[in-house]
């Protein structure tokens, strides 16, 4: 049974339809990647799943419960966490305070301050530093750690490498490795296609708010994904299914 089901989902920015009729099923423990060019609707889809962008039509079912009308904090309590684009840390709070906010407001579970510091050792050294004083890589690690402190069952990662140096990106992905080995369900939006293919079990390609293709990551090449990325609506291989 799917952990997260999205049925006929639509989301708008004013009159512009950013997500159009998206149907998606995500199994527990699955690592799903959403790919597409800028403006394809990836971030809007993640924000809608997290509850901070309104649903215009359709429904979202999480673990058998319809959560379409739930607010973002209720979805967080249910087990959905988003690492937003641009990190969005609380700038005038320390690293530890950023983490503690999530602990006190989220669900209980295996991810506690100690386990998070084990997964992200660089954060322990900076625990008393203000979030605004961290480097980009450290801020991204804090944003991921903060989401983990809510003990999510589904983690939505939006552009974790955006604006980071290659070394910082490598550091973030090294830290993520522990997470990827767990049973946490992950929905990833990432511009770096090679990393996406390495990390994900399944790829979903979005174009102008619609799903144009999806398939197992192991069966898709970088070139095929690039084809969908740049607007090819035809399936490049028999393995990739035209949506």
């Amino acid at each position, binding site marked *: 049974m799917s952990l997260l089901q999205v049925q006929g989902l639509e989301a708008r920015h004013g009159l512009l339809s950013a997500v159009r009729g998206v149907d998606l099923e995500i199994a527990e423990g699955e690592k799903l990647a959403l790919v597409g060019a800028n403006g394809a609707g990836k971030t809007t889809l993640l924000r809608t799943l*997290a*509850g*901070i962008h309104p649903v215009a039509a359709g429904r979202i079912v999480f673990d058998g419960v319809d959560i379409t009308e739930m*607010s*973002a*904090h209720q979805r*967080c*309590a249910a087990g959905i*966490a*988003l690492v*937003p684009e641009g990190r*969005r*840390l*609380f*700038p*005038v*709070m320390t690293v530890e*305070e950023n983490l*503690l*906010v*999530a602990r*006190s*407001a*989220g*669900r209980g579970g295996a991810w506690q301050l100690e386990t998070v510091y084990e997964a992200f050792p660089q954060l322990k050294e900076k625990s008393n530093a203000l979030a605004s004083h961290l480097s980009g890589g450290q801020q991204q690690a804090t944003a991921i750690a*903060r*989401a983990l*402190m*809510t003990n999510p069952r589904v983690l939505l990662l939006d552009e974790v490498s955006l604006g980071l140096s290659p070394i910082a990106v490598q550091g973030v992905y090294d830290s993520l490795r522990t997470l990827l080995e767990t049973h946490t369900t992950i929905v990833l939006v990432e511009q770096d296609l090679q990393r996406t293919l390495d990390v994900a079990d399944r790829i979903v390609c979005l174009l102008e708010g619609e799903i144009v293709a999806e398939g197992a990551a192991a069966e898709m090449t970088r070139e095929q994904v690039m084809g969908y990325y740049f607007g090819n609506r035809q399936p490049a291989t028999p393995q990739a299914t035209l949506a």
Partner: protein
Amino acid sequence: MIWANQLIQGVLLGGYYALLACGLSFMFGVMRIINLAHGSLAVVAAYGLFVLAQRWDVHPFVGLVAVVPAMALFGWILHRLVLDRSARAGELVPILSTFGLAIVLDNSLFEGFGANTRSLAPYIDTLAYDSWTLPGDIILGQLPLLTLAVAVALLAGLHLLLARTALGRRIRAAAQDPETAQLVGVNARTVYAASTAIAMMTVAIAGAFMAMRATFDPYTGPQQLIFAFEAVVIGGAGSLWGTLVGGIVLGVAQSLGAQIHPQGFLIAGHVVFLAILLARLYVSYGIRHFIRSLRRGPA
């Protein structure tokens, strides 16, 4: 020594202004809402204490045990019914709605209690006028000193609440980025309602000291709001300890102004407020301009 005495009276008066202003500053810092009903709400609390004292002979300090929670409940309801809805309609709407609330409160009090001035001073024995005289004829009033001590304790309490407790962290998170706070499980609406309740608790205490140190009537609120607003702006909007500094600066200005000229009490306070406001605007503009010119480099 007259000036030294006036300076000390100004500091003590500043304690009262800080006490009055801390709820206003707290609400602005957390929700970016300027509560124009702040002074009127302090007067409502004062009338509550007055009724308890007059009808049932309840000492004002004991009366606070009932009035503080009642004001907290009022604050929670106020947020749910008025502030939350107005804030969703835009930044200016809460200003209009709290302005309207102030008019409703003032006139309701006038309907209920008439225009007579009241005071809680008769109900606190000699505390209203007891004082210590220090060498050099410097007078330390016991009530003003207590007011300053309560203001410092209240600001320290709010500081500790924000810095050390889970609720405080949620309040700060919601104040800094309400959308992201929701993403990590913080119910921003509940946090804001709790913040309004906390602010109203401080308003109740401020109302008690206002009524003990002077007389009040149904239309005292707007005047108190002006003093509180000036203290908040002088000290830096949203900064708790800045509010204490702002209150003291305002109190000292008024006290020294009164020494210079009998009419100087209010004028000096307003002049200092405007001077600091303008200085902030120009200094801030000057610094930004200077940084921009450094970035551009020499022409």
